[in-house]
C-alpha cells in the first residue's frame, strides 16, 4: 500500500460523512445508488452499505444500466454480490433500441423502428438522420443506452438524489466538482441531486482502500483492466498485471477505453461549454 492506514481511514471517513449528510437530507425511498460493477461505483456502494450497517439504515435502491455490450465477468460479479449483500439489483436497459437493432452490435438501427420516447430523445439531442449504428459508446448510442435509461429510472422511481461513484482525479474537468450537485429539470430530464461520496479518492487510494478493507472487485481488474466500460471499447492496460500493480501514477487510467468522447467533453467543459 502506498497510502498509510491513517490516510485511507481518513478518506473513508470523509466519504461516510457525505453519505450521512445525504441520509440526513433525503428519505431513503427518495434515493438511489448507481452501480456499474466497476471499481468506483463498487467502492461507493460498499461505503454506503457500511454507513447503513453502522447506523441501522436501510440501503437505498440500487440500479444498474445494462448497455448490452457488457462483460460476463461483470455480470456474474454483480449477481454474486447483490445476493451476498442482500439487495435487489434493478437491471435496466433500453430494450426498445436493442430490439430495433435485432440484438446485434453495430447493426443499423432505423429511427422509425423506435418507440416515441426514444424518438423524442433523438429529437432532444437533435439527431435527425434516419438511422444510427448500435454502439453503446457512440454519441447516439451513449445517449440512448445510458443517459435515457438513467433519466427514465429517476423519473419512474421519483428519485430525488442519486449516488454516483465519480472521482475528481479521473478527469481534469472534474476538479471543480462538488459532493452534491444539483441537476435542474429540463426537457426529459427530471430534477435531481447527484451525490458523489468518493470524489476525493485517487485511483491509487481507491485500490489501497480495497486492499485494507478486503472489498470485493470484479476479476477483470486482476487480468489487467484498469477501467471498465462497454466490452468492445475497453482494453487491458498491462496484460496479466493486476490494476493496482500497474504504474497508476504515470500512465492513463482510461487509456484502454475509447476516449474520444471523454476527451472531447473535458475539453469542451474547459472551453466553457455546459
Amino acid at each position, binding site marked *: 500500500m502506498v497510502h498509510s492506514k491513517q490516510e485511507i481511514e481518513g478518506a473513508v471517513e470523509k466519504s461516510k460523512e457525505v453519505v450521512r449528510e445525504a441520509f440526513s437530507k433525503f428519505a431513503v425511498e427518495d434515493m438511489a445508488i448507481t452501480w456499474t460493477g466497476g471499481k468506483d461505483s463498487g467502492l461507493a456502494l460498499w461505503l454506503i452499505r457500511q454507513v447503513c450497517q453502522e447506523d441501522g439504515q436501510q440501503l437505498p435502491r440500487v440500479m444498474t444500466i445494462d448497455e448490452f455490450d457488457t462483460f460476463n465477468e461483470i455480470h456474474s460479479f454483480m449477481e454474486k454480490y447483490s445476493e451476498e449483500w442482500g439487495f435487489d439489483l434493478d437491471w435496466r436497459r433500453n430494450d426498445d433500441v436493442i430490439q430495433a437493432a435485432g440484438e446485434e452490435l453495430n447493426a443499423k438501427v432505423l429511427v422509425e423502428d423506435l418507440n416515441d420516447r426514444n424518438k423524442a430523445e433523438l429529437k432532444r439531442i*437533435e439527431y435527425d438522420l434516419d438511422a444510427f449504428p448500435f454502439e453503446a459508446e457512440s454519441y447516439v448510442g451513449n445517449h440512448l443506452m445510458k443517459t435515457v435509461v438513467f433519466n427514465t429510472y429517476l423519473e419512474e422511481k421519483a428519485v430525488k438524489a442519486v449516488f454516483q461513484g465519480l472521482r475528481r482525479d479521473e478527469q481534469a474537468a472534474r476538479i471543480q466538482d462538488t459532493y452534491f450537485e444539483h441537476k435542474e429539470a429540463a426537457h426529459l430530464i427530471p430534477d435531481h441531486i447527484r451525490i458523489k461520496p468518493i470524489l476525493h479518492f485517487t485511483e491509487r487510494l481507491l485500490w489501497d482502500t480495497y486492499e485494507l478493507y478486503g472489498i470485493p472487485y470484479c476479476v477483470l481488474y486482476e487480468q489487467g483492466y484498469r477501467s471498465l466500460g462497454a466490452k468492445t471499447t475497453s482494453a487491458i492496460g498491462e496484460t496479466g498485471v493486476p490494476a493496482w500493480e500497474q504504474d497508476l501514477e504515470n500512465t492513463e487510467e482510461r487509456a484502454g477505453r475509447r476516449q*474520444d468522447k471523454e476527451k*472531447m467533453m473535458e475539453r469542451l467543459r474547459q472551453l466553457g461549454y455546459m
Partner: protein
Amino acid sequence: MRNVILLTLDATRKDAFGYCGSSKGLTPTFDDLASSSLVFTKAHTTGPYTQASFPGLLTSSHYLDFGVPKGLSPKRTLVSEPLRNAGIVTAAFHSNPYLCGYLGWNRGWDTFYDSMNDDVEPRIPYVRGDQVNRKAIEWLTAHHRERAGKPFFMWLHYMDVHEPYMPERRWIDLVDPSIEISQDEMYTLFTDVLLKRDVSIAENIMLLRKLYDIHVREVDAYFSELMDCLDKLALLAETTIIVTNDHGDEFTEHGGLSHDDKMYSELIDAPLLIYGAGEAGTCEEVVSNADIAPTIIDLFSLPAVDAFQGQNLLAPTRESIESGAFGEAIDQRSEKGGDPARDIYFYREGDLKIIHRPEPESWELYNLATDPREIDNIVSSSPEAERMKGRILPRVRRWQAN
C-alpha cells in the same frame, strides 16, 4: 488544377494583424503573405464564437439555420463533401473540440485529424499549433511523395490564441522578455479575471492582452513553419492559401472579455485574405466567411453547391460581388449552457452595421466610417434605420418560428 489550403485562426482579432493595421509587429509571416494577396478589408465572421462561426466557414450556412444541435446538423453540407465527391483529396488538421469527428465535422475528409486521441496539458484544452503542423506537414510530405500533382484541399486550424492565454516562455521571450510571470499566475489570471469577466483592474486586462498578443506571435511562427514546408515541397506556386479567423476576442471594448454573444468589431471582423488566386490588392466590399466555401468550390472549377448561401469571392468582376454580411448567435453563458431564447443578430452593409436583440428588445446602428469603435448608436436618428432593421427581421422571425 491547383491546391487550396484554408487556414483558420481561433479567437484571433483582425486588428492583431499587421496587414490589418496593427503596429505591434506580431504577424511578420502573415503580413508578408498579405503583401501579395487579395485582402478583404470588410470581411466578417458569421458569429462571435466557434459554434456560431464554423457553420459559416465550412458549410456556408448560418448558425441558426437548423436549430442549435451539439453536433453538426446532417442538413448542412461541409465543403469537404462535394470536393471529395469530385475526386479532390481532402485533409483536415485541427484541435478544436467543438469541431471534432465525434460531433460530425469529419464528413467528407479523406484524412481528419482532430487531436481527440492525443493528450493535452492539463490546463490547456487543445493541442498546440506545432502538433497540428506536425500532422499536417507529415501529410503534405506523404501526399507529395505518393500522389504528387493530385489536387488537394487542406483545412488547418490553430487554436493557440484561444484562452486560457498561457504562452510558453519561448514565445514570451520572443515578444517581451521583460515579462515575469509563471504558468500558475497566468492560470490564476484566467480563472479569476477572464473566466469571471472581471474588468475592474486595468493592469490585469493589459496583462491578459499582452499574453494574448504573444500567442498571436506564436501562431505566426507556426504559419511560418507551414510556409517553409510548402516552399520546400515546391507547392507554393500551385497552391491557393486562404487565411481568416473564426472570431476575435474582447478586451473590455464593450465591457467584457473573451468572446460572448456580442456582435462588435473586436469579435466579428475577419482578417480574410486569398493568396495565389487572382490579382493581389484589396477588396472593399462587405463580405463574409460564409463566402469562402463557394470560393473554394469555384477554385476547383466545380459546379456551385446549392446548399451554400455565400458567393464566390473571386467572381470575374469585383462589381458582381454582392455586398453585405450577416451573423447570428445565442447566449452561451447562461446557466443552462446556451439559451436559444436569447438570440442576437448583426447585419452590415457598406459602413452601416445594425445589431439586434429581440429579448429584451434592443437595436443598435453604427456608422463604422465615423464611429469605428461602435459607441454612438444612431438607430433613432438614421434615415437608414428602418431599412437596415428590415434586413434582420426575417432572420429573427425564422428563428422564433422554429
